[in-house]
């Protein structure tokens, strides 16, 4: 940085400086506006083309006529079933991990650092690698193991299935749940814990009766964010259980299933006639977008409500 004694500035320096100010300001402003414009453009195009096709029938009917007409009910059903099982699997593990990290150990302890490191890395693992892991561990190792132990080697769980896709997604969304829950636990004042312990409550009683009730909205936020993330992931589930088309709805844990994101991928890249399926494709994208958007919105709202309560 040049240090000039600003006693008397030549007008040239001042002009240069004004120019620099203007340039840097407009560059920064333009960058911010570009990002917003991209977002609005993506949303705008999808809403404009997708909205006309939305109807009750579209949401409640199966696709017909080679995806050219009908609805996307099986995909919605599959997505809901998938994220439901995923949530059941991820919530206890995520919440307990966060509780352990925040309530039971100092953040400088070796275990805490190790867990944090793993969580950070888990969050950065490419989603397709999760898919490979689902194939290698859940399907080949666990699934085949279960088949040999309980089904006499008959192919039952050792193949792509709803439960394996859900568990793979659970692993993928684990970091989201841990981070949000820990954040929620952090907002519970330490005095409450101290008071409870001083009155003779055990740690578990303090946790269950004092800390967790306060942290419930935060944990819900975590669940919602995890669902929104899980509902949008395609790469892991296309390797572990999603199906191109199924004439029936999945009813067992080891059934395959249709899913919104995968349906979009199929319609966009493998459709027999892209022009004819395009309106349906747009509407499907809009449904997925609305789903994740509403979920994220409710998470944001929930979080701001909790923050307001804490003040």
């Amino acid at each position, binding site marked *: 940085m040049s240090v000039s004694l600003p006693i008397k500035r030549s007008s040239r320096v001042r002009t240069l400086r004004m120019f620099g100010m203007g340039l840097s300001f407009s560059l920064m402003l333009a960058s911010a506006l570009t990002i917003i414009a991209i977002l609005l453009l993506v949303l705008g195009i999808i809403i404009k083309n997708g909205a006309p096709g939305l109807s009750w029938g579209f949401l409640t009917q199966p696709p017909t006529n080679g995806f050219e007409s009908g609805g996307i009910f099986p995909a919605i059903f599959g997505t809901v079933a998938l994220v439901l099982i995923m949530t059941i699997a991820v919530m206890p593990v995520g919440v*307990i991990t966060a509780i352990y990290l925040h309530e039971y150990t100092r953040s400088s302890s070796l275990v805490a650092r190790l867990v944090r490191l793993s969580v950070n*890395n888990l969050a*950065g693992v490419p989603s397709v690698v999760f898919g490979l892991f689902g194939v*290698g561990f859940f399907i080949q190792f666990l699934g085949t193991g279960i088949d040999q132990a309980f089904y006499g080697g008959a192919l039952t769980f050792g193949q792509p299935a709803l439960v394996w896709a859900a568990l793979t997604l659970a692993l993928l969304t684990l970091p989201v749940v841990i981070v949000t829950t820990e954040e929620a636990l952090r907002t519970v004042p330490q005095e409450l814990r101290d008071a409870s312990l001083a009155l003779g409550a*055990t740690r578990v009683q303090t946790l269950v009766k004092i800390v967790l009730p306060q942290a419930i909205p935060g944990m819900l936020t975590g669940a919602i964010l995890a669902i929104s993330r899980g509902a*949008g992931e*395609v790469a892991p589930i296309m390797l572990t259980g999603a199906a191109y088309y199924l004439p029936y709805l999945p009813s067992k844990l080891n059934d395959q299933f249709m899913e919104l994101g995968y349906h979009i991928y199929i319609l*966009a890249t493998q459709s027999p006639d892209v022009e004819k399926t*395009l309106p349906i494709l747009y509407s499907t994208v809009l449904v997925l977008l609305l789903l994740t*958007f509403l979920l994220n919105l409710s998470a944001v709202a929930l979080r701001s409500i909790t923050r307001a309560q804490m003040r």
Partner: protein
Amino acid sequence: MPPASSPPVTGERIPIIPRRTAFQPPSRPWWSRVHDPLSRSVFFTVALTAVVAVLFIFVFVGKESLPVLLDETVMQEASLEKFFTPQVYKAGKEPQLSWQPVSKIPKYSFVPLVVGTLKVTFIALLFAVPLAILAALFSVEFAPRLIREIVKPLVEILAGIPSVVLGFFALMILAPHLKDLFGFESQLNAVVAGLAVGIAIIPIIFTVCEDAFTSVPPTYREASIALGADRYQTALRVVLPAALPGVFAAAVLGFGRAIGETMIVLMASGNAAILSAVMSDSVRTLSATIAAEMLEVVNGDVHYSVLFFMGTLLFTTTFVINLLGDLYIRRLRARLGGK
């Protein structure tokens, strides 16, 4: 004072209050003595899930790729040497680097895929990094509170858009328009995929940068202003350099995301394994190759092991990159911490 239990000295009878009734707190159930240590160990075990998961990913993805490194017959077809060096497939022909896993003579060269991945990543970073850094700087240093409160949730919404939707956007809208604009020979290419991946990684770069800029202590800015610098000079020459490790971490994390991004490149890159430096050629990336070919391989096949090896490679790379990002964030904290 004599202890309460000592016998009274005089003949006067003093009622002896049984100790237990007066001040004893309500008795705890028997399990309360057990459940604290018990729950601690249960919670500890559950908390290790994340650690075990990372370990298992490495072990189980790595395990399936072992034949490529150990099995003699598999290595005739696919080995490290075949992955990364030019191979002569037909006597008298030039040695080549090509990825054709399902031809009569399977060719497993990673080079076109690695180059493809780097091309897409390069475009993505070129697009996203400056945009996100400048926007974050704007949001922290100059934007009025109101604008800041609008920009942040918008970026969060952008982060929430599933990558398959961005892939769809790139495939259906971006690709045809860019083709008209620049006259690309192939409609789906590294530029289209790179831009879409760029959109996908803007949020993480923005967020990490914003954190870095906010964590620069206000005293830095005050000192700069006091020395006669204006707000712009302060932002660009004081705040930005002070937060540089954080900005670098943001770029590194963005890089990690970009090389692992799957659905966007699968849909918008054209998926042709062409080895070239031209950005407007179709490309095939590592992640897209795994996603596309995993569904068609026979379990336990050479091709199957090769794809898992590719996954191991991808996992190891992102793992190292994430560690690096972590390191730089910690360095930023150390630099700005102090107090």
